[in-house]
Structure formats: structure tokens, C-alpha cells
């Protein structure tokens, strides 16, 4: 049994959601209960499989890929079906398979207009396949395929079940991401043709991410590396989203149904940062050193811009969307330091942001359902009318602004700290300046979140809603969907080692090509440019 799990477990978590979706396609639309049950069951089976794999996982060797499957796939382009799990993938994979069942539970009585639970839940499951696949793929083409598979269901979720402006928002979301991934694919192809085996100098001609990481861009001229990295930077950067590519995000979040927003915030944005951690930087460390100060710059611009954007918002969901831009700025800043400490902080930030912002969107969805508006100026007095909902919003806002003891703190604080000493070859002055700016960003974050909380939860309920019978407190489905997230926000706040211990070996391993050099990445640079 364990053997079977270790061999086929990873493949199973990719395909189980698809099997569930296929079964649901055969059942007529009117059997709504059956659809919900099958969808939930499928996502729980996936969660169970991931839990079993996590138990079997050898944490002492978290830097090595485990449960690896390597099979022929598209021979003519030398692309293979390679999947594997290591310490970087585990937290993100676990986050994904946790969020999907919670979203399905939340959907039990909350299928957004115009209904059709069948199609909505099938899309959720296809989305899960895409997200899971992206986090465990170890072949660039396979990665690309899953990365793109995610687009379609999310496009339809926004376009069909979204708000007023859903047509505009869905097309904008798709076009931005497609633009990024088209350039990213060109980058992958260039890597395929140019990368060399560092030992022999022979051309690799492989999409195998393990080999390309080992090769770490050896044999590619510096200027070409910069171009390839640039293509990937746009590809992943749009997804993150990094300032100035972020404009799709507020529209997509505002128009998406609650479930779509939650998945978008909790998992989809992480696909971009994961791409930087797993592909762009390890495969082209030399180009990354040149790019890093600029990545850091757009990251801190994102932090400040996102925070200022939040202060100007009148719509609660749009405000949370802009706070995502700011929070992902912290993650990108940590990544730009190119140190193991920064990478660990980034992964922690990704998980924390996933839990917290996912939760914030859940709350926003429930507020919208009760008040039929998210206009902050019309809300108020939630603590009186729906005290539990108000308190949950309070806790999550505190977590989001980085209060110590909650998960958000460990996402933000180490990220800032990591900028104090960036990798060798990066300017300390520049990054310490970024550090100061980022620290200002946390103050602004406290500002906009507390202000939001004050305006929506405190005070007296506005006259408009004072006697509205629709405004009820948290119901059973909501408790079921939210409790795991709330517990994890607290647990990860108290025990940060739960994640850091898993990611650290893997992060060290993937940055090994830089670290094994006495001077870090600079010596790689010098060796490559011959200077």
C-alpha cells in the first residue's frame, strides 16, 4: 500500500479531481445534491492523499525530490512526464488541496448567480488539477501546461458567475496572463536550446527542471540570459502580480464570485512567485543577480502603491485585492534577496497570505451576501449586528497587518529582515533602502486594515441596515469552511517552525549552485563572463 502510494500518489492527486469532474459530467444538472457530494468527496480524497504523502515524506531529506515519477510523454520535443515533491512544494500543495474542499463546503448554499452547481463545481475541480500539477511538475512543458490549465476555469468562473463588469474583468484577466505565459514559453524554449551540461559542456536539450537547475544557465551568454530571464519575469510577474502588471487583479477580484476570489488569492497568485523560486532564479542565477535590484524595486513600489491604493478604496473587496498587491510585494522583496533566508520567508509569506487573504475574501463574500453591498461607507456596526462575523474579520485583519502571534507576522517580518543582508553580489545599500521602505509599508498596512475594520465593524449599524432581517451571524457552512483556516492562522503564528523546517533544506538545495561558491552568486557570474 505504501509502495503504491509512493509510486502513484502524486499522479493520483493530479487525476482524482479530473475523475470526479468526469463523473459529474455524466450526472444531469438537476441532481444538485449529488454534484455537491461528489465534488466534496473528490476534493477530500485528494486532501487525504496529500496528507498520506506528507506522512510518508522524509523530512530529513526535504531538499531532495521525493515520490518522483519520470515517464515518456512527448518524445518529439523531448518533454517528459516528471513530477516530484520537495520541501518547497509541500506547503503550497497542502494549501491548495485544503482550500478547494473549503470552497466547496462554502458553496453548499452559496452557488452564485446564475446557479448551475454542476458546471461551477466541475470548474473548481479542474482548477484543482491545474494548481496541483503546477506545484509538482518537474518538466517545463508539463509545468507550462498546468500553469495554463488554471486559466480556463478561472476565466469562466469570473465570466459566468461574476459581478456586473464580469465580461471586462474576465477578458482582462485572461489576456494579461496569456501575454505573460506566451513570453514565458519563449523563455523556456530558449533555455531548452541553449542550456549546457556544466560538467561536459554538451547541450542539454531537455525540459527537465532538475537538469536545468543543475546547469544553472551555464554556457548561456550573459546578455541572452538577461533576455530569457526577462521573458520569465513578465510571465511570472503578471501572475504574482508585480507592479506595473497588477491592474488585472483588482478587477478580477472585485468581479469574481467569492469562491473565485478565494482561490485566486489563496493559490493562483502563488503560481507566479513559485515560478520565480523554482524556475527563474535557480535556472538563471546569474541573470537573476542582475535583475534582483530591479525586482526588489518593483516589489517595494508594489508595497507602497498597494497600500496607498487600499487607502483610496471605497469597496471592501477591491481594498482586499489591493492589499494582495502589497503583500505579494513583501514576498517578491524576499525572493529578490536570493538568500535561503529570503526564500524561506517568501514561502512563509505565500502560505500566510493564502490563508489570511483567502479568509478575508470569504468574509467579504458573506458580508456581500448579507448587506448586498461592499461599499465601506454604507457598512458599519457589524460587531453589534453579527458579532461573530465582526470578530472573525477583526482577527483576520490583525493577521493581515502582521500582528505577532498570527501567521501574517512570519510572512512579513522575515521578508523585511531578509533585505538587510542580500546575497553576495547584491548591493547592501540598495536592499537596506528597500527594507526601510517596506517597513513603512507595514505601517500603512496597519493603517488601512484598522481603518477598514473601524468603518465596517465598529460604531452603530447604519439606518439602512439597522432592522434588516437578512443580517444574520455566521452559519454552519461558514463555520465549517472557515474554522480550518482560522486555526491554521493561529497555529502558524505560534509555531512558525512547522513551515520553516520543511522549506529550509529544499531552499538551501535549490540555491546550492550559488551557495557552494565561496563568494556566492558573484563567482558564478564572474566565471561565466570570464571576468
Amino acid at each position, binding site marked *: 500500500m505504501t509502495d503504491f502510494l509512493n509510486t502513484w500518489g502524486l499522479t493520483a492527486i493530479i487525476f482524482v479531481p479530473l475523475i470526479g469532474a468526469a463523473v459529474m459530467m455524466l450526472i444531469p444538472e438537476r441532481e444538485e445534491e449529488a454534484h455537491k457530494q461528489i465534488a466534496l468527496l473528490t476534493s477530500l480524497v485528494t486532501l487525504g492523499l496529500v496528507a498520506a504523502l506528507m506522512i510518508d515524506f522524509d523530512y530529513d531529506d526535504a531538499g531532495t525530490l521525493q515520490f518522483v515519477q519520470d515517464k515518456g510523454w512527448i518524445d518529439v520535443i523531448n518533454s517528459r512526464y516528471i513530477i516530484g515533491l520537495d520541501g518547497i512544494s509541500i506547503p503550497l500543495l497542502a494549501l491548495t488541496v485544503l482550500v478547494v474542499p473549503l470552497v466547496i463546503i462554502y458553496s453548499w448554499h452559496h452557488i452564485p448567480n446564475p446557479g448551475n452547481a454542476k458546471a461551477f463545481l466541475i470548474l473548481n475541480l479542474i482548477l484543482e488539477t491545474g494548481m496541483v500539477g503546477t506545484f509538482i511538475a518537474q518538466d517545463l512543458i508539463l509545468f507550462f501546461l498546468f500553469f*495554463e490549465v488554471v486559466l480556463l476555469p478561472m476565466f469562466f468562473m469570473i465570466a459566468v458567475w461574476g459581478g456586473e463588469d464580469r465580461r471586462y474583468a474576465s477578458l482582462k484577466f485572461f489576456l494579461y496572463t496569456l501575454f505573460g505565459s506566451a513570453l514565458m514559453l519563449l523563455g523556456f524554449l530558449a533555455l531548452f536550446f541553449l542550456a549546457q551540461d556544466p560538467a561536459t559542456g554538451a547541450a542539454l536539450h531537455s525540459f527537465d527542471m532538475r537538469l536545468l537547475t543543475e546547469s544553472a544557465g551555464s554556457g548561456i551568454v550573459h546578455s541572452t540570459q538577461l533576455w530569457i530571464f526577462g521573458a520569465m519575469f513578465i510571465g511570472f510577474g503578471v501572475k504574482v502580480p508585480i507592479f506595473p502588471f497588477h491592474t488585472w487583479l483588482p478587477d478580477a477580484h472585485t468581479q469574481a464570485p467569492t469562491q473565485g476570489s478565494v482561490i485566486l488569492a489563496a493559490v493562483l497568485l502563488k503560481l507566479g512567485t513559485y515560478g520565480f523560486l523554482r524556475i527563474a532564479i535557480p535556472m538563471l542565477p546569474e541573470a537573476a543577480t542582475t535583475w534582483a535590484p530591479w525586482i526588489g524595486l518593483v516589489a517595494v513600489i508594489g508595497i507602497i502603491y498597494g497600500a496607498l491604493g487600499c487607502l483610496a478604496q471605497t469597496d471592501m473587496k477591491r481594498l482586499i485585492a489591493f492589499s494582495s498587491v502589497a503583500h505579494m510585494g513583501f514576498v517578491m522583496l524576499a525572493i529578490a534577496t536570493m538568500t535561503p533566508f529570503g526564500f524561506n520567508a517568501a514561502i512563509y509569506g505565500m502560505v500566510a497570505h493564502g490563508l489570511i487573504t483567502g479568509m478575508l475574501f470569504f468574509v467579504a463574500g458573506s458580508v456581500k451576501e448579507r448587506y448586498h453591498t461592499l461599499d465601506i461607507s454604507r457598512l458599519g456596526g457589524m460587531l453589534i449586528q453579527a458579532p461573530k462575523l465582526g470578530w472573525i474579520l477583526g482577527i483576520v485583519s490583525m493577521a493581515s497587518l502582521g500582528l505577532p502571534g498570527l501567521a501574517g507576522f512570519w510572512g512579513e517580518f522575515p521578508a523585511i529582515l531578509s533585505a538587510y543582508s542580500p546575497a553576495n553580489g547584491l548591493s547592501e545599500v540598495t536592499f537596506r533602502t528597500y527594507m526601510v521602505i517596506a517597513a513603512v509599508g507595514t505601517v500603512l498596512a496597519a493603517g488601512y486594515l484598522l481603518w477598514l475594520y473601524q468603518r465596517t465593524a465598529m460604531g452603530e449599524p447604519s439606518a439602512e441596515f439597522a432592522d434588516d432581517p437578512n443580517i444574520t451571524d455566521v452559519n454552519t457552512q461558514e463555520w465549517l469552511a472557515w474554522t480550518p483556516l482560522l486555526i491554521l492562522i493561529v497555529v502558524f503564528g505560534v509555531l512558525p517552525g512547522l513551515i520553516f523546517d520543511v522549506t529550509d533544506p529544499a531552499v538551501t538545495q535549490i540555491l546550492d549552485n550559488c551557495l557552494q561558491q565561496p563568494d556566492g552568486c558573484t563567482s558564478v557570474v564572474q566565471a561565466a563572463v570570464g571576468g
Partner: protein
Amino acid sequence: MFAVFAMAGEHFSRPPIDWHAASPELILLGVGVLLTVIDIVWKERARALVAGLASVGLLAAMIPVITLAVDGEPRSMFGGAFVVDDYALIMKAIFLLSTYVVVLMSTNYISEGDYWENEYYGLLLTSVLGMLLMTSARDLISIFVALELLSIPAYMLSTWRKRDLKSNEAGMKYYLMGVFASAVMLYGMSLLYGSSGTTLLSGINEAVSGSGGPSAVVTLGIVFVVVGFAFKVSAVPFHTWAPDTYEGAPTPVTAFLSVASKAGGFVGLMNILFVGLIGRDDVYQPLIWILAAASMTVGNTVALRQTNIVRMLAYSGVAQAGYMLAPLAVLSTDVVTTGGATTIVADQALAATVTYLAIYAAMNLGAFAVVMAVARKTRSAEIDDYRGLFRYAPGLTVLMTVFLFSLAGIPPLGGWFGKFRVLEALISPGTAWGSALAVVVAVNSVVAFYYYGRVAVKMWVEEVPDGNMDRVSVPASLAAALAITSVVTLAFGVGPGLIGHFTQVSLLVGVGG
């Protein structure tokens, strides 16, 4: 060449014929003749039979294609003017299968529309016969004959709705443009013949390639030949006939033109470029670079403004022609190493275009099949009449979405692999021009998504305009066409190895140097 005539003067001896190699063409010819005879003898009573007979003929012609492929030996006849190799066979298979789908799409359309049926299928088969010949033609004369054989029936088919003014306009425009293109091409061919003294492509290659620049005559010959084919594949700026012809012609004929006829043009172009002119990359590379970049950019930009879905698909077809032309812009005899094995850039370009043609055939035919199915209810091809399709025809909506997104190149649908091969072929030589064209392709795919995605949004999101929620009745044969095209589109996307294996072909080896 002259020696042959001299010999014929004394005692004519028939050149040896490899009957096995010629059998796909012969079967089609036989069935075509049979259709005509049945028509003459049975008149109206034949109507019930012809569609079935035509499909049987197309599938029967597949049998020798398969046996020849299993045999695997390249065969050559008539002094190298007619060659059957892997490349010819895969293209023959694409032509036969896509025409089979066209017959499935035509069955109800033609009989319900009360059009001439027997002649319709007769002409359709004749046109396919021309395409099959084209795949094997390695000689200027046989290429020209094949081109006319595939074109002339297509002119007539475009006017099949003869009481409809638009259909007449379609056929007339197509005919005039086509004849003009043929004339230009023929002139180019005569220049090539004049400067090389042979009509055989391999002979032309020996004569025109070599160090030192090409003579003005050769350059002009190459330009004219390429321009002639550019009309056929509807590449910008020679695409102006396509939207009007597509809109006016009966929809199954449009599907046939946009897939089979376009592929026929590509096959002819590739034969001439790969076998006859490969050494003159200094002439054709810039020419094709411009044609490809212009086709994609103009096709996609103009498609953004279309309100009629057939016209939109016509412009999308122009853009798709640009993608398929792109690998030919880096075509050369240079050698690169891929995955340990060395390949010639030319082979990679050929494999890319052939792969794209195969996938394009499936997804584009599928899109037209949905257009036909929807028009059965709405009697319209306006994009606005697709609003709310999901409410009353969810199955067709899902299929249309699959085809449109595949055309846009979104994984995991077939189109992505075609585009991937094109990008791969463009980047592999490592030249600045190739990489620049790859960027043009990438940016264009994003632009293209806007109009494909817009149709998807209309189908899924908006309300039904007139509130008419009647279901769309899809006849069995059209449903079969939809099933075949959608399965193929999905299969190529998830398991590209399926098609990748067959399209890994070479033209340079087949010709024997």
C-alpha cells in the same frame, strides 16, 4: 526532358507505374467516376446514395495510404515527378480525413437546401484528388496540374447556392483571384524552368542554388511562385478574397476551403521550397518572413472588428496561415542538434508546419461544424446571435469553446502543441530574425485570444436575445463530425506524442538528395 520526347517519337513505352503507390488517387478517381455514372443513370434516385458513396470512397482511399505507411519504403515514379514518402502519406491522410468530415457536414446541408447533390460530391472528390496529387508532386508541371485540379472544382462549389447573390459573388471573386494567382505562379514557374532547363524540382535545386547571388530571373521566379501560393493560403496582402468568399459560399464548402484547400496550397509551397529552392534561402526567407508576420498581424487585428462569425473565422484563418508560414521563414539546410540527435532546420520547420496543419484541420472544421449546427436554429452567422447559447445548447457551447480556445492555442487543447512546434522551429536556429518572428507569434496569440474569448463570453454569459429557448437539432452526421473533430482536438492537446510521431517527417531525405 527532350530525350523523353525523342524516344516517344520512335516507339512509346509506358513508364513503369507503381500501382500500389498510385492507388489512393486511383480509388478516388474511380469513385468520382462512379458518382457521375450513377447520376446519369439513376438521376434523382441517386440522391440518397451519393453522400454515403463519397464517404466510402474517401475512407477506402485511406486503406492504401495506411498500407503504404506500414510498408514505409519511399517510392518514386515518372523520373521523380511523383513521390510517395512519409510526408506525402501524412498529408494524404489529413486531406482524406478532413474531407470525410466535410462530407459529414455537407450531408444534411446540401440535401435540405435542395441543391444539386450528385455533382457536389463529384466535384468535392475531384478537388481532393488534386490535393492528393499535390502531396506527391515533385515537378513544376505536376504541381501546376494538381493545383488547378484542386482549385477549379472549388470555384464551382463556392457558388453552389446559385440563387444567392452573395454565393455568386463569392465564387466569382474566388475564381478571378485564383486565376490571377495561377497566372502569376505559372509565369514564375516558366522563369524557373527557363533558368534551370528542367521542370523537375530536384533539378531546379541543383541549377539555382550555389554560391554567389541568384540571377534576377531566378529571384523573380521565386517571388512569383511564392506569391501565387500566398493567394492560395490566403496570406496577407493576398488574402482579400477570403472573407467574402467564406461568407458567401455554403458553410461546408467554406470549411473545406479554409482547411483542405489552404493545406493544398501549403503542400504545394512546401514541395517547391523544400525540394526545389532550398538552397536559395537568401531569396525566400525574407519574403516569407514578411508574409508570415503581415498575415498574423493583419489577420488578427482585422478579426477583432468582425461581427459575423464566418468572417471572423476567415480572418482568423488568415492569421493561422501566418503561424503556419512562420517556420518556413527560417527554412535552410543548416544543421542543429536536438535531444542528442542532429536534425536539419528544414526538417524541423516541415514537421512544425505539418503538425500545425493537422491540428488546424481538426479544430477549424470543428468550429465550422458548430457554426452550421447553430445556424440550423438561428439562420444567422452574426456573433450577436451566439448570445446565451449556453442556456439552450450547452453541449454545442462547450464544443465551440473547445475549438475556439484551441485555435487560440490554450493548453490542454490541441492548438497549443501546433503553436509550440512553430515557436520551437523559429527559436532552434538561434538567429535574431527567427527569434523576432517568435515574439511576433507570441504577441499575436495574445491579440487573437481577444476575439476568440469574446465569442466565448457572449455564449456563456449573456442572455438569449429573443428569449427563444428551443433546443438546436443536430442531425446525426453533423454530430459525428463534431465528435470526430473534438476528440482529435483534445487528444492532440493531452497526448501530443500521438500526432508528433506521425508528423516527424522529412522532405529532404525522401527526395534522395
